[in-house]
């Protein structure tokens, strides 16, 4: 008898366990009424971006009451780990925010759908969009994603400080100018007993080198994406400059730079740096938390050569796991073209790619946002064609680059050793 009681107890336990699963599913379904489709939308960002995007989603719900949007958002850290595991479980959200460095990886694993048919039939309307903004999102005839904003790698600077010490960063200034300016300002401030670290690399040494290679007429990766596309001397030259900046204290040591980043602080906002590398749309965030007036300029010239390029800061793509591609496409169209939605989003993801949206916003957005609009027009005069998409494995190559820059800054390796170490490690990954 006893054992039957047990049997019943165990079966009851198992039944409840199963029921638990059922009721969870039930809840998810209850979110929408009959006839509704549900799409999941994932993005990364900070709290401001989350708030603005959620507000835009509410507006989307008003316009398309039959489409229910489930947001999934996190910070940049953890976003890709999350997506990668969802990809492994064939459970990716319908719409995902894409970064250039992952586009190829996701495309080559056949996780993204071709948007070209949806663009051709007008579900996603790109008639107001200049081709330059979409170039990087193409794979042959396939359209992998729609840019949610454009930006360019730039230098953000403190205008007041620059004026005070009598410098300017008009296009044409060089890497050496940057070095001398930071040293001079540092000297002046420290004489008055202040704290000053100089140029904040902001952990973007890799992106800056990408530009440096282009200024030398080379590329970071070769055309086929199975190796590097620059000469070793070029990297040695660049590392020499980085080393000189840090060794002579025109830029802070690595641990100070990292402690600012990890603490979510910025030297530029605090006034202990006068310049910082940043994507142009970061000016908006940086301007919010500081008393100083900040502005943008293009990257330094090398022997008069400029190699900036405009790129989508991020894009939206539709995944292969989506069962509601039509609804997902409507969402992307809404984010790209809806004026009211873009008013809410404040161009924080980068300058909107639709001319109509830009024209509508330019009068009503805040000053830092206007500066990013104006900056892209300046950059356009100094651009070259953008590089092909970075090959799968870029994340690991970038990781190796950052580690080697770290040991260079700590003085553990010479620029020559650093360059040959990086080339060897990168080729190991790419082959």
């Amino acid at each position, binding site marked *: 008898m006893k054992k039957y009681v047990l049997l019943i107890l165990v079966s009851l336990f198992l039944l409840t366990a199963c029921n638990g699963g059922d009721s969870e599913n039930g809840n998810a379904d209850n979110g929408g009424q009959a006839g509704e489709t549900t799409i999941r939308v994932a993005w990364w960002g900070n709290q401001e971006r989350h708030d603005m995007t959620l507000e835009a989603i509410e507006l989307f719900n008003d316009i398309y009451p039959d489409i229910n949007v489930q947001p999934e958002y996190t910070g940049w850290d953890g976003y890709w780990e999350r997506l*990668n595991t969802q990809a492994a479980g064939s459970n990716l959200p319908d719409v995902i925010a894409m970064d250039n460095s992952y586009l190829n990886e996701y495309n080559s694993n056949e996780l993204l759908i071709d948007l070209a048919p949806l663009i051709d039939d007008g579900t996603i309307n790109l008639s107001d969009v200049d081709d330059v903004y979409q170039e990087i999102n193409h794979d042959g005839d396939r359209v992998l994603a729609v840019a949610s904003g454009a930006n360019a790698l730039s230098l953000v600077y403190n205008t007041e400080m620059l004026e005070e010490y009598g410098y300017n960063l008009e296009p044409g200034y060089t890497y050496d100018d940057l070095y001398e300016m930071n040293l001079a300002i540092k000297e002046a401030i420290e004489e008055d007993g202040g704290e000053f670290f100089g140029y904040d690399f902001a952990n973007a040494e890799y992106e800056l080198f990408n530009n440096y290679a282009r200024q030398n007429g080379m590329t970071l990766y070769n055309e086929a994406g199975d190796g590097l596309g620059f000469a070793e001397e070029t990297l040695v030259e660049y590392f020499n400059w980085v080393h000189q900046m840090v060794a002579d204290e025109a830029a802070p040591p690595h*641990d100070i730079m990292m402690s600012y980043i990890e603490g979510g602080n910025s030297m530029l906002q605090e006034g202990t740096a006068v310049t910082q590398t940043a994507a142009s749309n970061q000016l908006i965030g940086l301007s919010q938390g500081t008393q100083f007036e900040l502005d943008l300029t293009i990257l330094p010239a090398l022997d008069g050569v400029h190699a900036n390029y405009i790129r989508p800061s991020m894009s939206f793509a539709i995944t292969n796991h989506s069962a509601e591609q039509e609804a997902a496409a409507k969402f992307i169209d809404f984010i790209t073209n809806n004026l009211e939605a873009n008013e809410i989003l404040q161009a924080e993801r980068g300058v909107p790619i639709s001319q109509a949206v830009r024209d509508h916003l330019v009068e009503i957005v805040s000053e830092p946002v206007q500066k990013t609009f104006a900056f892209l027009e300046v950059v356009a005069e100094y651009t070259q064609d953008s590089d092909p998409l970075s090959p799968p494995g870029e994340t690991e190559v970038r990781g190796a680059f950052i580690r080697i820059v770290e040991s260079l800054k700590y003085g553990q390796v010479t620029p020559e050793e650093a360059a040959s170490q990086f080339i060897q490690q990168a080729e190991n990954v790419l082959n």
Partner: protein
Amino acid sequence: MEKEKKIPASLSLESRNLRADNLSGYLSISPWLIGFILLILGPMLASLYLSFTDYNLLSAPNWVGLANYQNLLSDGRFLKSLEVTFKFVFISVPLKLIFALALALLFNTGRKGSSLFAAVYYVPSIIGGSVAIAVVWRQLFGRQGAITQILSALNITDANLIGNPNTALSVLILLVIWQFGSPMIIFLAGLRQIPLELYEAASVDGATKIRQFFSITLPMLTPVIFFNLVMQTIQGFMTFTQSYLITGGGPLDETLFYAVYLYETAFEYLRMGYASAMAWVLLIIIAVITSIFFLTSKYWVFYQSEGGR
């Protein structure tokens, strides 16, 4: 003849009963058993298979044989992570155990309130592995952290201990030692098991407190020391949170724990097959070290039940 026939009959009845008993036994452990098979054994076998493939999470795995294991040998960061992890385990585990034992001795005096203090000192172990404490630790030892400020005011050092490749590991070791609570509680239980008459006899013979500690307490405590040593060593090899959250493995990979490198390889660089191979190597390392402890234990662990051998 009849007798012979009867025996198998009764046997078979018994074995049927036995089988029924077994069934209800399995049923009653089934919640655990199902969990074990689905959540531990299954994934383990899957990872064993994946360790022989080039699985990258996003597309189907291809068989590559022993390539992952061979590549480990020439992977500089893998060797670095081994070095860091061994350094960490061999420094932090003995220190932690000594600390735990010292406090357990202190709380074993039976003074008023000693159990309250034991409870208070256990708190870091409950919260110590958490994300919040890791963040607090990063703040305390960071560039403008309280501890950095104090050290700098005392003119000991004005460096940022977490950012300095020579000291970053020490900060993590300190955090782990601070979580001495669970070995302490186990030591405390062990100390209370030691028969008081041993001490009485020793004091009658005129043995000093120190002599008593080395001749009675320590030998009697060896089974507990052994247990703590094994558990803490295993835990030490699997340490992840502290390094991942406080230093991210840096600076210069000086705190790149094995588990952190494994995680990075699997989820950031998408080399799941390679990471699975790393996980199995770690399992083997832990198994070897644990069995060394077990093999040597007969020379230094004394069990009362075996006549104090």
